[in-house]
């Protein structure tokens, strides 16, 4: 966690400095930058490690609505609700994608821990959802099968 954080802060600092120099952002827009390390991991285990979420307890309070069979992997709608009290963030991983980490949503004061997003699923895979609450990660899975349709080769 510590290492990951320091890395991120460092990177964020550099990005921000460059952006400020270029006049791209106003100072109040500055915040935690894109987690390059976690998004760059190529296996589920490494992505979880980078997120410091290698251990997470199964939870029935994380609801995932996604099609069991998606006709096209380019667009797979996933709807997630966390009923865990004080959910701080929701993380979406597509286990078999080349880069498993797909998205991380941080819910600040006022937000409902709910999100619906369309993701790409390269092949039939588990969609793994983590919810961060009370300083711990919880996990739920949903399998999505990807098929194809169409003609003409």
């Amino acid at each position: 966690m510590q290492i990951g954080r320091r890395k991120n802060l460092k990177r964020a600092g550099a990005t921000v400095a460059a952006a400020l120099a270029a006049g791209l952002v106003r100072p109040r827009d500055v915040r935690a930058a894109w987690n390059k390390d976690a998004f760059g991991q190529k296996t589920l285990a490494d992505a979880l490690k980078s997120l410091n979420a290698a251990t997470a307890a199964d939870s029935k309070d994380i609801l995932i609505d996604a099609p069991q069979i998606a006709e096209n992997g380019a667009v797979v709608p996933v709807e997630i609700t966390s009923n865990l009290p004080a959910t701080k963030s929701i993380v979406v991983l597509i286990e078999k994608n080349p880069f498993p980490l797909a998205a991380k949503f941080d819910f600040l004061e006022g937000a409902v821990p709910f999100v619906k997003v369309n993701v790409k699923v390269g092949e039939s895979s588990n969609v793994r959802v983590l919810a961060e609450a009370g300083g711990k990660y919880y996990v739920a899975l949903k399998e999505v099968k990807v098929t194809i349709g169409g003609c003409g080769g």
Partner: protein
Amino acid sequence: MADPMKIRAGLKGDVADVRVLMNHPMETGQRKDSSGNLIPVHFIQEITVKLNGKSVIEAQVSQAVSRNPVFSFRVKGAKAGDRLEISWLDNKGDRNSTETALA
């Protein structure tokens, strides 16, 4: 026409149901164009939802989000007339934002 973005927001009690549509190719960097050349990776990385200027949701996403992204969010403690602003930043440093007043 700069890439449009569209917010659709409805109030249910004090919860704002927000749907946002973004125009973006979300290129994975692994797709080829018609001449067989790889199309460079190009995707939205960060999304911020603000209510009356205050961040309520901050998202980081990857190229695994589908082309022309559509997100749905819910924000508590909202009322008619509140200003909802959504912005994104992509890996090339391009950004876009749009806002709407809740009704």
